[in-house]
Every structure is written in C-alpha cells, then in structure tokens.
C-alpha cells in the first residue's frame, strides 16, 4: 500500500506512562450518575423516576430520534433522583442518579441479540447503546447507515491513539485482540464492506505485532503502522494517510467511501453480540502530574471521576486542572463530581505547573500555526478576525473546516488561544448561517 501523508501536525511529549499498566477493575462506587446525553444527537427521555429499582443493563433512557442511542444502568440499586445538572458546557442535562445496592443483579433484558439480517444487526447496535468510543461519541448505528447513494468500500479501524497520556486503546489491542478481529468481521459481514484497514501509530509496535498476528491470513483485514504524529488519529487525517483520499470540506467520510470506527468500538460489538450486555463500563487511562499511581481502570459508566482518581491512589499534589480526554482535545472540568461517560477514554489531573493557563503575548507572525495546521487553515488570521469582530471577512477563511485538534495553539510561541478563538468563530458563523 502506498502511504500518503497529511500535512502539518505536532509532536507533543507522548507521556504514555501507562502502556504496561494492565487494566484493573474498579468496584462499585457510592453513587452513579447517568446523563441522558452521552452522544452527539437527540437527548434521551428518562424512563425511570425517583424510588424505582433498577438492574444492571436496564434501559434508563431512550429516544425516538434516529440520531440517538439509549442509556443503561451500570449497577443495580435504587434511583435516588432524576434532575437537571450541568455536566460539561453550559447546557443542563437530565441525569439519573442511582444508589447502588452492591448486588449487581442483571436485568432480564440482557440476553445475546439474535442477528440474522442487516436490519437486526443495526437494531442490535443501537440497542447496545454504542457510540464512538474514541472520544467523539457519534452513535455507531448512524455511522453504519450511510446515505443510500454512497458506496462504502473501506472500513478503517482507528487505533492511532495520538493524544499524549492515553493508552486505553492500546490496552484494548493487547488485552482483547481477538474481540477486535471478531468485531471487524461482524461489521464487514453485515455492512458488506469488502476490506478493513487497522491503523496504529508506530510508537505501539507490540499492538501492531499482536494484531498483525491475529489477522494473519485474512485477506479482508490488514494492519498498518502509522507515523507517530499528532493528530494522526483524527478521522480525516487517518483516512488521508491510509487511503490517500481527502474528505471534502463539510462532508462525512462516507463521501470518499470510508467508515471509521475505533478499536474499542469494534471490540465492544463482538462482546455485545456474545453477551447482550449493553455499554455500561469503560476502560479509562488515569494519569497526569497530580495522580499518584497512573493506571488503566475499567470503570462503570456513571462513576464520579473523583472516585476514579481515589482508586488511582488519590493526588500527590493539589490538582489545578481536571481533564476528561487527552490534553490536546479533552474537556477541562470544573468539578470532580462529573461522571465517567461512554466516550471518556482518559481522566487527567494536572498540577499547577502543567495546568495553569499561560500568559498570552502578541502574535509575532512566525507562521508556525500555519505550518502545523493539518486542515491548511490560517489560525493567526482567524484569531485576529474573531477578536476584531470582522465576521464578514471571517466567512472567507473556511473556519468551519477546523477539526479543533489544537495543534496551532500548542505550537504558538506567544501562547495565543488560537483554538479557542476558532471555536468562537465557528459559533459566530453557525449563528449567522441560521439567521
């Protein structure tokens, strides 16, 4: 295969401290908080009320909308409240809080689905509660149902894991190798896609070796070593590297015949078809300069992150910043009460030195942001226009193409908040488009 390459990118210090940390299971927490939105799409309606008894795997919320997935209880116990809370961002979300009884009784609804047709497969995927586990949280059954007139010829399995610190996908490759291959085969079978390409960054040679051995003589699946360069794991970059195709501006990967799934997502598909247990737990890398013993932890979805940090030995220094996700694209949290969600792949606690927000200096026009932007945008210009409220001019800068990878702000010697400016710019342009 001829390897193409995307332009730009950065090389942040990898800090993959937890690569050799085999996954450890965390117990049942004091309480579980399940938000009704853990995906991109319509929120679920809560199907339980205060005082109800729930069991493991029971549906807590669902929606009639196509772009939505149900949420399930990760414990057995009693619903202690159903109310609106601020999880991340500024919009309140309905959350079901459960007091676990410690018995972990499994719901009667949990049984392996009967899959004998494409429709049954899609239905099962939706019922499993699966959203992209790589971090974006896009409902998987929607992804598997591209528009009728598009022909998908390549399934891309994303094991790049280009963010610093995170090793949860690496552990998936090492610990659940056969599930990954099995899951890929299920997806290939029921979608009719002829081939699958697994892409993994070359800083994880063991994972590449293990998967390559597992696919061995299968003609439909191949494993590819990718150059370690952030944001190699971004969907559009990964497609470009593996197939040479460029997803057109504003379009989805299906436009160029590709469908991208995370390694953990396909692995879960295999597991679900075997057991019927919906998505109620998640492997999370716990790391950062304030964390005593960095770990890979299998956590019940809904566990407050403070408890996960405690499970990792607590803090060795007062954390100045808590992040859900990686340091390049993760979300900074304002509280340790926020629960682990379906798309959570890492929890980081950074100390004062790592977590403080650096002072912004004047742009010196050094051009580094332009060099590293994988989408070929002009971050410094967008920053200038957003700050000056020059919105008409802003329309000409393809702002909406930005994938928010953060490479520009990372590399900026003047520590300008370029990615933040671009997010503001996107918001402004979307509002204007609606008018």
């Amino acid at each position, binding site marked *: 295969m001829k390897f193409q390459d*995307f*332009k730009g990118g*950065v090389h*942040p210090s990898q800090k993959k401290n937890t690569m050799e940390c085999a996954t450890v299971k965390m117990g049942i927490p004091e309480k579980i908080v399940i938000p009704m939105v853990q995906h991109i799409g319509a929120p679920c309606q809560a199907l339980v009320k205060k005082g109800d008894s729930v069991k493991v795997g029971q549906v807590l919320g669902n929606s009639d909308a196509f772009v939505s997935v149900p949420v399930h209880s990760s414990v057995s116990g009693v619903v202690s409240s159903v109310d609106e809370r601020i999880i991340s961002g500024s919009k309140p979300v309905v959350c079901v809080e459960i007091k676990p009884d410690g018995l972990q009784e499994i719901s009667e609804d949990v049984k392996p689905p009967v899959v004998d047709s494409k429709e049954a497969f899609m239905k099962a995927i939706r019922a499993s509660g699966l959203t992209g586990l790589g971090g974006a949280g896009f409902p998987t059954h929607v992804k598997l149902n591209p528009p009728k007139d598009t022909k998908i010829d390549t399934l891309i399995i994303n094991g790049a894991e280009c963010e*610093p610190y995170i090793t949860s996908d690496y552990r998936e490759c090492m610990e659940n190798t056969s599930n990954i291959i099995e899951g890929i085969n299920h997806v290939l079978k029921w979608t009719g896609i002829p081939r699958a390409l697994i892409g993994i960054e070359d800083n994880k040679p063991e994972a590449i070796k293990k998967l390559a051995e597992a696919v061995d003589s299968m003609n439909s699946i191949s494993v590819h070593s990718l150059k370690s360069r952030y944001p190699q794991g971004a969907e*559009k970059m990964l497609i*470009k590297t593996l197939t040479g195709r*460029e*997803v*057109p*501006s504003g*379009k989805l990967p299906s436009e160029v015949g590709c469908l991208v799934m995370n390694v953990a997502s396909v692995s879960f598909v295999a597991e679900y078809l075997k057991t019927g247990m919906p998505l109620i737990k998640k492997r999370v890398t716990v790391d950062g300069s304030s964390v005593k013993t960095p770990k890979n932890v299998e956590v019940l979805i809904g566990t407050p992150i403070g408890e996960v940090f405690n499970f990792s030995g607590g803090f060795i220094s*007062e*954390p*100045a910043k*808590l*992040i859900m*996700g990686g*340091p*390049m*694209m*993760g*979300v*900074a949290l*304002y509280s*340790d009460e926020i629960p682990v969600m379906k798309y959570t792949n890492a929890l980081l606690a*950074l100390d004062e030195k*790592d*977590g403080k*927000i*650096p002072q912004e*200096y*004047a742009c*010196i*026009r*050094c*051009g*580094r942001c*332009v*060099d590293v932007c*994988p*989408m*070929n945008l*002009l971050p*410094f210009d967008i920053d200038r226009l957003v700050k000056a409220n020059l919105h008409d001019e802003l329309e*000409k*800068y*393809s702002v909406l*193409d930005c994938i*928010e990878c*953060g490479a520009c*702000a*990372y590399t900026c*010697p*003047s*520590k300008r*908040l370029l*990615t*933040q400016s671009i*997010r503001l710019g996107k918001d402004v342009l979307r509002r204007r488009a609606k008018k």
Partner: protein
Amino acid sequence: MENTLFVNSSPHIRSEVTTQRLMLDVIIALIPAAFAGIYFFGIRAALLIAVTVISSVGFEYIIRKVLKRNNTIGDFSAAVTGLILALNLPPTLPIWMAIVGSLFAIVIVKQLFGGLGYNFVNPALAARAFLVVSYGARMTTWIQPLTKATAVDAVSYATPMGVLKGGGELPQLIDMFLGNIGGSLGETSALALIIGGIYLLARGVISWHIPVVYVGTVGLFAWIIGPEGIFTGNPLFHILAGGLMLGAIFMATDYTTSPMTKKGIVIYAFGCGLLTMLFRLFTNMPEGVSYAILLMNVAVPMIDRYTKPARFGGKAHV
C-alpha cells in the same frame, strides 16, 4: 477543590517554544558577529552596540509607558532590534546618531504601528534607511579594519561594494569571508554570521528557505550578469560583499515582516535577491540589501494574499 480548578478551552498543553526564548536565541546567534565587529573595528564598535541596545530597550520602556500599554521589554524584541541596528552602522558613527536610530526604530516604526507583530517593515532596517537619508555622509564613512597594517581611524576607506562602483583594488575573498574588510560593524564577517545562522537553524528559530533562496538568487544573478557579458560574474564576490549575509540570515528572516507560508517565503526571498542585484548593478547606490528587504517587507501582505494554502478537502481560499 472546585474553586481552584482552571477551566479553559483545549489544548491544555503548550510547546516549550516561547517568544522570549526565540528572541533570546536571535541575540545569542548575533554574538559571534558582534564580537567579530569589535575585533575588527575596536572598542568603538562595542560602545555603539551597547548604546543602541540600551537606548532601544529604554525607548521601548518609555513609549509603552507614555501610550499606557503594558511593559514589553521582557520579550527581548527591543534588544534584538537594538543589536541588529548596531550591526548595520558604520563603526565611526557619532553616538547621538545611533540613539536617533534607536528612537526611530522603536518609537516610530515599531510602537506607533502597534508594537511587536504589527510593524510592517523591519524596524532596524527602516532606522538604517532613515539615518542614511538624514546623515548620508556619516552613514557612508567607512574605516579599514584594525587588523590591516595601514589602518588609520577616520580615514575614509571604500567597502568592497564601493570599490566595485568607484574603482580600485578588490579585496581578497578570504578577507571578505573572515570580515577583514571595511563595512558596517557587524556585516563584514560572513563566517561569524554563518555560525549564527547555523545556530538559528539548529534551534528551529528560522528555516533554511529565506537565507538559501536569498543568497542563491544573488549568486545566480551575479553569475549571469557578469562584467564581461552573461555568465561571467563571480557569485562569491557578491555573496560575501556588503550586508547580504546579515540581511539574508538575520533581517529578511524577521517573522513579522516575512510571509506566513513556505511558498510565500520563497517568493519573498527570491524578490529580496532580485532587488538586491538590481540595486547593486543598475543604480548608483553601492549597496542594495537594506532597500531590497524593506521593499519586500511592504510586499508581504500582497504575497500572503496570493499564497493562501489550499484547504484540506477543498479548493483554495478566496
């Protein structure tokens, strides 16, 4: 704990490279050239360097105070401007003229246009051009380096570019390479400037594009348009003479006044080289580097406009 957490937009990590560190690297890279200047032209060169650096930083401090803006001397950009200005001055220039140069560079060219990142031409070069216009005689009075046996202070002496225009005996190439010739106090030693340039490249402060394309273009045209017809010129003479090395390595590479994309940078550097040779060969000015760079500085917004990168997955920007 909730009240003490930082919450901001990602990314949450930043590279080690800072504006301050970049400026400091430029200062470090100019140290060999500064020492070469002092070695060849004596203590007076050291005095001029000290005066322009201190006065540039001082003017930066004062004007920011007057304009009620934050103090920016800590980013070291004013010190860089002062140092580069000194290296562009004849060793015999009166001290007060050097201070006027600092004033023009920092107050007029840099701060009145908004400060670091907003000046549209290189401040040190603009100040040099201003001094040439204002005090033409003193700005073109050159002395022989101290290392030459016949050196006598304040005796006017021709630079290699002056010899080329006015006639006389051309210096040895090896003297031009080492800096053992007349000229501005920091421009004569190609060796010292190249050492600084290699340091900047190694530190990732500059890329090779501007110096290589600029010097390459000058060499190419020097060879093509030779004194005995086409393809008879000596590229090395033009490459080592005058302020080309100082200009190509340290002044044309100024971030603020050079284009943002690699494509733009190559066009800009080619333009610098072409204009330098046009000035040198077809005007009555002996030297063209500073005006070439200043003119190309002015062209940067236009170059940026026409070299916008084609976005990923689509057509070029408007």
